[in-house]
């Protein structure tokens, strides 16, 4: 049964290769789209089978399935092999499940595109790489997937490579793709260094043996410098892939890609790879309290700043992009305070509601003929009933309205941020403010887009509901966004039950060692839980009320007057804290001009070449003096060479 895991990545690989090579010849969109979806649908079914296999055996240890030896030389022996356990299966289910829905959706969304086949080929490539990332049994294979999803992301962001895109120093969509790849490479640098350190420290790159060695000698490794550096370097990788500060700048520009890509890659799956990596290395991370603190603090700051930017953006996708950055921050806080399974839980609910929101936004963009500015939308409810309803459900979920999925996971994160020995009230306050912002910008987005005056140009824009292939995915994801949270009911909501929540008990074997290291914290039901829950919920409800009130006024007078009274702050948020400009001014431009004027023009041309040409000229003149009849320069030196050789040899011989 566990051998099935080998075939999960195989199908999307076949899809990528076949569609990539033969897709151009096949004009039938349904055939291409259907085939690509099938290549993701089959692994989804296989994942379900593996899920039941694990459930029925109740396996506590990972099963490793070896495929072939990849790089073996010297003391290095790295194979392509997959690890079957609760964590990898959970991610495989999310990736193939959501991936399948988004493939179906894309058949409608990409209809009539010149490079329809190319899109589906890339999507399959992405699924293949993402599955390698999460199923790998060693760091290097994860790294293959890690860079591979980066490639797919690069190709898909720049999919419409001849379209322009607005951004700091960005002209084309391809520039945004390049930015994503390069920023991610900075993170990959950290990942690579971490792997080198792991290899020399633990003599292996297999997850199982590294974790086992570390857990078995935990008092030796506890808070040791080496483990702290390893985990910080891994986390640097995570800040790249999961768009956390300081490497968060690429994700908003990644919105240049087609909207299904934003939903699948830049919201539901790829960007959660960082959370996966920390969870996979929960033993190492739990061994370093300093790193855990860094993870939590970076997550919290990112959550807050990104949410604050989201408050004032007018591009429907940009708002969702900043929201994603912010939500990823929430997940990292969960990991940083040691609540690993809650981080995974939020990955899951976020995949549902953010996937839904992006797809619904795509449906709006599709229906509005590629308009993305919410200021010129409004009143779309009437034209797009399914889209607006599902979008609203997604909004309720992300805003933390009880008892939608986002409520369950976010509430747990807030609780652990408060109560964990690695957390504290400060973290809770930052996250609560971020949650307040989240609720506001999401309801603002909803009301500006779907209600109020119709502000678009009726002559050119005729909004319409999207085809069934698209609305199907919306409906499925809306159901999941509404009820997905019940997979892990917070204990506070079911005080009479003493059993662990479903997801927690399912993931227990994965985090057993980490929990052992951190010291088991048996939390009973505390009154404080309810207090905090009520506060957080009221925040969400209040913001709903505020947004509704402000934006049902056609003049938007309240938000306008506030923005006018805080012009400076509004501009800072609108300009995204000028982080891009800061990087250009302090890092990129100086390196560029130094390379050009100092390294190249000065060192290479003036110094090195100058020296050599100078001495060559000297020798040339010298040569011409001793050999009066001479035509070619090369011969000159041949003669000189011989003279030199003979003199040196004779010196050596007779000295």
């Amino acid at each position, binding site marked *: 049964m566990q051998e099935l895991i080998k075939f999960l990545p195989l199908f999307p690989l076949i899809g990528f290769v076949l569609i990539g090579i033969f897709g151009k010849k096949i004009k039938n969109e349904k055939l291409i789209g259907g085939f690509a979806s099938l290549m993701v649908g089959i692994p989804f079914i296989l994942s379900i089978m593996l899920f039941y296999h694990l459930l029925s055996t109740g396996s506590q240890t990972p099963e490793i399935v070896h495929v*072939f*030896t*990849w*790089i*073996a*030389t*010297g*003391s*290095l022996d790295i194979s392509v092999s997959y690890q079957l356990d609760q964590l990898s299966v959970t991610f495989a289910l999310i990736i193939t499940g959501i991936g399948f829905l988004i493939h179906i959706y894309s058949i409608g969304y990409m209809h009539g595109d010149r490079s329809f086949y190319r899109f589906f080929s890339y999507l399959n490539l992405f699924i293949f790489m993402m599955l390698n990332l999460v199923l790998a049994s060693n760091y*290097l294979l994860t*790294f*293959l997937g890690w*860079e*591979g999803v980066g*490639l797919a992301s*690069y190709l898909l962001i*720049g999919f419409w*490579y*001849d379209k322009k895109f607005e951004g700091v120093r960005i*002209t*084309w*969509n*391809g*520039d945004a793709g*390049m930015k994503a*790849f*390069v920023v991610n*490479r*900075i993170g*990959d*640098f950290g990942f*690579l*260094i971490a792997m*080198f350190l792991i*290899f*020399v420290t633990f003599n292996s790159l297999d997850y199982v043996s590294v974790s086992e060695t570390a857990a078995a000698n935990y008092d030796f490794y506890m808070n040791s410098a080496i483990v702290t550096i390893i985990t910080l370097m891994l986390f640097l990788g995570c800040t790249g892939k999961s768009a956390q500060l300081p490497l968060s700048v690429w994700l908003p520009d990644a919105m240049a890609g087609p909207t299904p890509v934003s939903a699948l890659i830049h919201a539901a799956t790829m960007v959660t790879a960082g959370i996966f990596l920390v969870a996979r290395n929960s033993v190492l991370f739990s061994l370093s309290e300093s790193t855990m603190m860094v993870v939590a603090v970076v997550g919290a700051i990112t959550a807050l700043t990104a949410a604050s930017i989201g408050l004032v953006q007018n591009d429907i996708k940009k708002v969702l992009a900043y929201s994603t950055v912010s939500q990823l921050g929430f997940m990292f806080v969960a990991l940083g305070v040691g609540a690993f399974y809650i981080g995974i839980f939020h990955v899951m609910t976020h995949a549902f509601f953010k996937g839904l929101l992006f797809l619904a936004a795509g449906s709006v963009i599709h229906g509005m003929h590629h308009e993305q500015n919410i200021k010129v939308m409004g009143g779309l409810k009437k034209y797009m009933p399914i889209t607006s309803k599902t979008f609203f459900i997604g909004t309720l979920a992300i805003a933390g309205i009880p008892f939608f999925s986002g409520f369950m996971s976010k509430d747990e994160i807030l609780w652990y941020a408060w109560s964990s020995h690695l957390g504290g009230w400060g973290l809770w306050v930052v996250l609560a403010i971020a949650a307040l912002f989240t609720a506001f910008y999401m309801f603002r987005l909803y009301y500006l887009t779907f209600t109020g005056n119709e502000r678009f140009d009726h002559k050119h824009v005729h909004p319409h509901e999207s085809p069934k292939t698209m609305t199907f995915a919306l409906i499925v994801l809306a159901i999941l966004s509404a009820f997905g949270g019940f997979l892990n009911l917070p204990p506070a909501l079911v005080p009479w039950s003493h059993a662990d929540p479903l997801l927690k008990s399912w993931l227990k074997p994965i985090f057993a060692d980490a929990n052992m290291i951190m010291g088991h914290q048996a939390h009973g039901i505390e009154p404080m839980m309810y207090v905090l829950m009520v506060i957080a919920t009221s925040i969400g409800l209040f913001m709903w009320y505020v947004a509704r009130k402000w934006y049902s006024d056609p003049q938007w007078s309240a938000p306008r007057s506030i923005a006018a009274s805080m012009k400076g702050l509004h501009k800072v948020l609108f300009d995204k804290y000028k982080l891009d400009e800061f990087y250009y001014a302090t890092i990129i431009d100086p*390196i*560029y001009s*130094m*390379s*050009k004027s100092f*390294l*190249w023009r000065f*060192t*290479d041309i003036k110094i*090195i*070449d100058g020296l*050599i040409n100078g001495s*060559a000229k000297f020798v040339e003149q010298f040569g011409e003096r001793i050999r009066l009849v001479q035509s070619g*320069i*090369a011969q000159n*030196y*041949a003669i000189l*060479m011989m003279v*030199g*050789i003979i003199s*040196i*040899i004779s010196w*050596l*011989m007779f000295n």
Partner: protein
Amino acid sequence: MATLLLTLFIPLAGSLLLLFFKKDNIQAIKYTALGISLFTFLISLFLFFSFDSANPGFQFVVEMVWIQAFDAGFRVGVDGMSMLLVMLTTFITPIAILSSFGSIEKRHKEYYVMILLLQFAMTGVFVALDLFLFYIFWEIILIPMYFIIGIWGGKDKLYAAIKFFLFTVVGSLFMLVAVVYLGYYVGSEILQMQSGFTSNFLIIKDLGSAIPYDVQKWLFWGFALSFLIKVPIFPLHTWLPDAHTEAPTPGSVILAGVLLKMGTYGLIRFNLEMFPQAAMNYASVISVLAVIGIIYGALVAMVQTDVKRLVAYSSVSHLGFVVLGIFSMTVEGIQGAVIQMVNHGLSTGMLFLCVGVLYERRHTREISEYGGIARVMPNFTVFFAIAMLASVGLPGLNGFVGEYLTLIGAFKSPILNSYWYTIIGTTGVIFAAVYLLWMFQRVMFGTNDNPKNYNLKDMNKREWAMMVPIVIFIVWIGVYPSTFLKISENSTRLLVNKIELLKFGKSTYELPGYENPAEKQETE
């Protein structure tokens, strides 16, 4: 035995054969040259498959004394490392010849004579087991390469050709002195042979540590300087951008694909093998230069406006990884260096082919002249992208395997004994993404708004034939490098064993079924 000699001499015979062709019988000359190089490749395949990778020593050895007075002989043979480089040579040459069909427009006969002569000499360099013979092959290469750049090159071809010649000759000079002195020292002082001189590498290679260190270190630098110029290493690299840029496409392909590897090969074969003591002592100096080269090459590549010059500078960066791997003196590092030599030959060779494809259509190499080419040349875009990504070091393609192994080798190296080489070297992977992706962005993406580019033709059949074989190996080495790592594994272990025994008195790596002569001496 015969297969090795055939692999070596068929190109020479072909080169001589072409001399008898009529000058204007261009088609016959072209296809004969191609046929000869393909035939050589076939023969070398036999060599490859009959190679015994379990044996770490030299195989297919042929020994004939040539000049008795100096004990100089025709001695050839291959071990795991040279085997791979011979294959690289026989593989790249037919592709380079195929690309010549489009880029060489005058004096065809002379050109194809030169290129086959070049192949003969390059193979010779990799198989020679006699210092004198090696030196002869090393020098022969100068002649065809000088003419290929000087006659069939671009605008500043003469400047580039002379610069190339000068640098190499200066290096060779030092090497010749070292060869002569080494032969004399081993022949008279150590072995006290009748001739008083030997250039037999098979003997000399194990006697290096018997040479007093004061002498050894000068001999080490005599060889190293010549090789390091060829690699090239910072700050001896400035001949390379000119030579690569001005050479015709096949010239650049061979320069990048094979010629540079003669330097790195020489470092392993002669410097590490003959002077391990000196190599250990100077490992950190050379590795510092290698790491500087990685960063420096990448940064200077980033600011280039000429596509070809950009690719040329990228070689400085990539070869830095190779040198770092070599002087890590670990099995991982040297194995990584060997596979990276092959990788660089494939991916940079292919990048030059891609630049050539563009150049043949537009006759310009300025990046700003292009943009949005993806729209008119979709198939070409795919190949160019693969070459670019292989060069960026994307896992799953070949470049990653080499870079990763050299870096991890340097990281764990007891001889370098510092993490900083790897840490700084690894930043090179960031810069590689910057300069290559940015170039790709400007050339291939955006809109095609230059009227001269409106009607560019996509790749023709000949161009497909050049690219597809390279792509196969780019993917093969990326996914299943064992095929090739296995070939050089035992030879590398043998070399590293020798170094470790010298340094630590014991070795880490086992060589199943092989008795290490050095170890045997120890036990005796």
